């Protein structure tokens, strides 16, 4: 609570994302238990934890691909709830990158990137194309613009997916295990892209098992287990001085 009062008093560091007492059930199974979390603008958060710990569920609640049943989620000051009318406008401001890329296979790489700005934001085709090409350059695959997703490697596809999200000029980027479906040699090219994005000042929330990336980029690491936030800390403290036994056990397994 003390933390809460502090942020409210300082309007400049108002959290862009805030969760209060968020809980979620799948039938009888409680996937999220009373989650409190605040993310400030430009903050980089890494969420880790064993599989089934609720980290993907948590991140998917942030753009309401999943519905929470208890508690409050505020994104850029707008509360997410089941009767809201403007979920699409909130979603336009939140980019999301999926484990399985989810590119549109019937559209070219360029069309994938233009789809959002052109069809949703109503930006004309020429400008959408320029923006898409600029971002494809940023993720270093402008030469693949006219290919179809299946002609690309996994790493290239994931970079296109990142560019596709960035084309919407989001305020926050969510990454849901972006490198888990990749062959080992392609992980680094995607992580490099994410590191550069972090340097550019994007607010990022990443669910990932890449601890090297977490050390390098994260302002804060959150460890989840069984639907709870067990521990959160700055990377140095998190890795060198974990407090909770579950965190220690997890780190032993991941870092060994």
């Amino acid at each position, binding site marked *: 609570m003390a933390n809460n009062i502090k942020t409210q008093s300082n309007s400049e560091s108002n959290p862009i994302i805030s969760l209060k007492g968020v809980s979620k059930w799948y039938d009888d199974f409680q996937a999220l238990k009373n989650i409190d979390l605040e993310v400030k603008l430009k903050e980089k958060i890494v969420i880790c934890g064993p599989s089934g710990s609720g980290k993907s569920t948590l991140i998917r609640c942030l*753009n309401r*691909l999943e519905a929470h049943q208890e508690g409050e989620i505020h994104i850029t000051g707008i509360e997410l709830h089941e009767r809201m009318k403007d979920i*699409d*406008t909130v*979603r*336009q401001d*939140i*980019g*999301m990158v*999926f484990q*399985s890329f*989810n*590119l*549109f*296979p*019937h559209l070219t790489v360029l069309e994938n990137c233009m*789809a*959002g700005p052109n*069809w*949703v934001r109503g930006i004309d085709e020429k400008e959408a194309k320029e923006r898409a090409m600029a971002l494809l350059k940023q993720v270093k695959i402008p030469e693949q613009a006219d290919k*179809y997703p*299946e002609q690309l490697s996994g790493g290239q596809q994931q970079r296109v*997916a990142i560019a*596709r*999200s960035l084309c*919407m000029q989001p305020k926050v980027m969510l990454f849901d295990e972006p490198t888990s479906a990749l062959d080992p040699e392609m992980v680094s090219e995607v992580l490099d892209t994410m590191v550069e994005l972090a340097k550019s000042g994007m607010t990022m929330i990443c669910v990932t098992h890449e601890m090297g990336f977490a050390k390098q980029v994260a302002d804060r690491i959150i460890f989840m287990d069984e639907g709870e936030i067990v521990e959160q800390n700055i990377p140095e403290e998190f890795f060198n001085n974990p407090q909770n036994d579950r965190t220690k056990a997890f780190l032993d397994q991941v870092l060994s």
Partner: protein
Amino acid sequence: MFVDTVIEDKALHKPVFLIGLSVTVLAIFFAFNLTNTIFGEFLSPVIGNPEESGFFGRLAVSFVLTILFVGNLLLISFARLKIQILIVWIELFLLFLAFAYSFDLEIAYIFQNDFICSTESARAKLCTPSKIGLMISKGLFTTIYISAVSIAIATVIAIVGAVAKLSNNGFAYAISSFYTSLFRGLPLLLQIYLIYMGLPQLGFMIDAIPSGIAALSLCYGAYMTEIFRAGIQSIPKGQWEASRALGFKFGLILRKIILPQSIPIIVPPTGNQFIAMLKDSSLVSVLGIWELMFLAKKLGAKDFNHLEMLLTAAMIYWVLTIILEMIQARIESKYKQKT
């Protein structure tokens, strides 16, 4: 389709199979006494008068036919796949012609002038000098017209129905599922009668062609609703999630993301429906619409040359469906290249 890389021995080239096949075929030919047919006449130099050839004649005829049949198979088995397919097609087609020939038809009847043309009332533009001409200019045209309009309407119904069936709007789901249940549950012929005779009871006077089109569209729209629903559902959930995450609205996702991807899945079964509908359009002949089936019956009935005209109609339907199959194959290969 997946073709295994291991080449198996051809069954036809195994002596055991070949002998077994020959014995079976011989037994079959022997079981049907063929000495009194054209085959017996051919062999008369050997077996004498077919009528009196008895057991020996019957055996000789079956033996020769078996040699011809099995030898033909053996020869074809050495050809390349494409040649094999071509030869078997031609042989089957010749058999079909022989079957038709055995009816002892009066082929010229098809090309004779029709009485309809000589009457005062039919001196219209569409009146043509021959029966086959009338079948094509009037019957084929009407059949294609009815089918094409019905196909277009059925497609629209199917898209709307599929979306309704997938929605969580109670009214939409109930209406759509009631519709598919009813129109898949009643025989098409019955639907045609119900629409043609039922709607006037409500005060809607409806002509034969519109009611035929309505029945065909509604019936096939119901089948296609299920096809479209399955096609939409087969698209991975991730496509919806990615579109939603970008802020797409439902209609936009369906139009730009989901339907374009389900087309390759929808096309093959939909092609089947189009072909089936083309043939089922013959049922509207009961309303007196001058399409192929109706004309075939009408033109043949006067001189009791039913089979001539029915076979003519059969060939026209067959050619039409072959054309549709080719179009379907084209569309399928086009989408195969793209994705």
